[in-house]
């Protein structure tokens, strides 16, 4: 799969109009300098030769160097992966903290005021564009109240408090959108599970509603939720492009967008490889969780 992804990206990128040297030297008309650079970077070679050389390096564990800043791709990517990963995990945590109580309450109290609050929140979260929510949060917490930093990144592993503060607004932005999806998924899958015969049996046995939910229903309703979370985690590892852009977070999402605009081929290829790996890892994690949630899956 990785070979298909990397080959596809390589071809699509090179077929896209635009030249990295033109972008680097937009203000210069010196064709000789441009040609020298093109030769130095091997961009004058036929496409097939460039691809074979790139694959050869990849097999040796070398992702090449960024055309734009000359640094190894692996250095660029490793510098950016940490903020994206921290943001993804924090957003995921926020979404779980919000979505689980809200989804369960909506399902259990279906048709009541609590359900309406839950479904309205979910609708709002799904419909609200990320950038708009981000700007509203910035205006409220950054400009008006001045409680949280508006943009930039501090590593939470180096300065825990400042780091968490710098990630707070982007994580809330992403977390609320994700919470909306999880709330809806959890509600509908809980409602489906609540209609099962074993729930009626449990109720007939006189078990409390909370015990039924916690002990029987929730675990059975988790499969679709885990699927959604797994897919979202894969996407978030690949970078939440708009959120990172708005909050000036130096993550993978911003890196790949900048690299595409600059036609920085090796960098785009490196990041896409990383995103593909992220998806594979999160799918693997989801498969493992399926087995834990429903042992029947393990025995199939």
């Amino acid at each position: 799969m990785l070979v298909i992804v990397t080959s596809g990206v390589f071809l699509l990128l090179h077929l896209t109009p635009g030249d990295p040297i033109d972008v680097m030297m937009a203000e210069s008309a010196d064709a000789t300098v441009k040609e020298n650079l093109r030769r130095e970077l091997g961009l004058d070679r036929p496409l097939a030769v460039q691809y074979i050389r790139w694959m050869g390096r990849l097999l040796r564990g070398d992702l090449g160097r960024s055309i734009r800043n000359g640094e190894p791709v692996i250095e660029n990517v490793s510098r950016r992966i940490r903020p994206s990963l921290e943001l993804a995990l924090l957003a995921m945590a926020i979404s779980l903290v919000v979505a689980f109580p809200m989804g369960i309450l909506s399902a259990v109290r279906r048709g009541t005021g609590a359900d309406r609050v839950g479904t309205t929140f979910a609708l709002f979260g799904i419909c609200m564009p990320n950038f708009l929510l981000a700007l509203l949060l910035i205006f409220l917490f950054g400009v008006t109240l001045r409680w949280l930093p508006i943009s930039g990144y501090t590593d939470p592993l180096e300065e825990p408090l400042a780091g968490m503060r710098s990630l707070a607004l982007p994580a809330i932005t992403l977390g609320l959108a994700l919470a909306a999806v999880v709330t809806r998924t959890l509600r509908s899958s809980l409602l489906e599970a609540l209609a099962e015969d074993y729930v009626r049996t449990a109720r007939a046995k006189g078990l409390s509603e909370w015990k039924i939910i916690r002990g029987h229903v929730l675990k059975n309703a988790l499969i679709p939720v885990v699927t959604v979370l797994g897919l979202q985690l894969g996407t978030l590892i690949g970078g939440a492009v708009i959120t990172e852009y708005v909050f000036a977070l130096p993550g993978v999402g911003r890196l790949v967008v900048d690299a595409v605009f600059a036609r920085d081929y090796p960098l785009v290829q490196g990041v896409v490889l990383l995103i593909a790996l992220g998806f594979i890892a999160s799918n693997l994690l989801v498969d493992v969780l399926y087995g834990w949630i429903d042992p029947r899956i393990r025995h199939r």
Partner: protein
Amino acid sequence: MTLSRRSFLAMCTGASAAPFLIDPRPAFAQQTPKKGGTLRVGFYIEAATMDPHLSGSKIDRQVYHNVYEPLVTLDVKLGIRPGLAESWQQPDNRTLIFKLRRGVRFHDGTEFNAQAAKFNFDRMKTEPKSVRKGEVASIEAVDVVDPATVKISLKRPDAALLATLTDRAGMMVSPKVIQERGAELERNARGAGTGPFEFVEWVKDDHILLKRNESYWNKQGGPYLDRVRYRPIPDDTVKLQSLQGGEIDVIDYVQPRDVAAVKADRNVVVVDVPSLADFSYQVNHARPPFNVKALRQAVACGLDIEQIVKGVWLNVGVPANGPIPPTSWAYDKTIPPIKRDLARARAKLAEGGKAGGFSFTLTTNNIPINIQEAEVMQAQLGEAGITMKIKLVDSATLLADGNSKNFDLISYQWSGRPDPDGNTYQFFKTTPGTSLNWSGISNAQIDALLDKTREASSQADRKKLFSDLTKILQDELPMIFIIHPIEPKAFSPRVQGYEPIPDGMMRFKDVWLK
């Protein structure tokens, strides 16, 4: 402090021999400067390299003008003043002799002298990746006369060279740093400059940090700031909110759509810096339909540039009569921008054999203001019977289409150069192969005029030549000139002492924090 459109226009029209400018000093310099503090600057993009000889990005220059110093500098009226050279002489039009300032040291402690200057020029001319080669192409040789004197011999007269040396081509880098650090200079400029601030660190994707040069040679005024910290904030709205929220003290550019609101905010000081820029459209002379002059003229007459500047740019700039901005001494205020004249447009269509109108494609950047401008142009040309399709592309595709001449009409936004040569020669001189002359214009009269502007030694003579050139350009139309934009910069009220120079570069030597 702000400058109204009326004042701006008044300054423009009042600029004859002396260029117009905005003098912010009354607003900024009423109090006694004090030392200390960190100035936090927000830019839309990260710098590309710390090596001025390899730099092709405008944002790099913002940092360089605080770390490095050129041989000569610009003042607020775009006059050329001593920099690392305390004086210069031109015994003939092929020789330039610089008397260098004594007692100047690079941040690494080595001495700046004639040998260092020669080293820099030689590197700009020979380094394979040098982006400065074109700017110093007229230089034949650089000779050390004595430790404080360099003689530059030119292959051909180049009246624009002195102005070119006010920017990256004139910036002196420590030879020791280049020799010892080589390519690492691109990421680490520690010790490399002579300027009022020293490079401290560049944390990629996060910030560039400078600190005050305690041994700065110029004891008049600053540097006052302890540190300058540059941060990339790509989103314009967030960058502005970061200023309003007190997270940063300066932003390099306020979008026209935000200017009115920001000016109304008492917690922000806006300085309208008239720029050297020229925003226009290159017209492809090499293929139909615009290989026919009358059809180019039909489009020019069908457009209402004043309306575009008013409605799209919200008057954050002035309608352009040509490539030379009102900030320049060469600007000719007697030449009006091309006026909309639908009757003439229709007559030109008939003259070009397209009385029923014709269709062409405009290629432009996929960014909001360009899209708005294109839509307005589309509507205006529609009234003249001309159908304009819009092709939206990213910057890389725009450059590729321009360089390969794969366009009819294409957006071109040039940041401008202090000497009018930088806004004209490379765009309109006959140049085979890839060049910034995307229109492909090849006109003997224009070529001769451009060469004369380099040979003429008096500014008055050059101004006359540039006026003649502007008139021909309005007729031949290698470009359709739209606007000379203003570059509004916004500051926290704490920031004092900023002097706006129309090249748009923010020099912080005399800036201090209240």
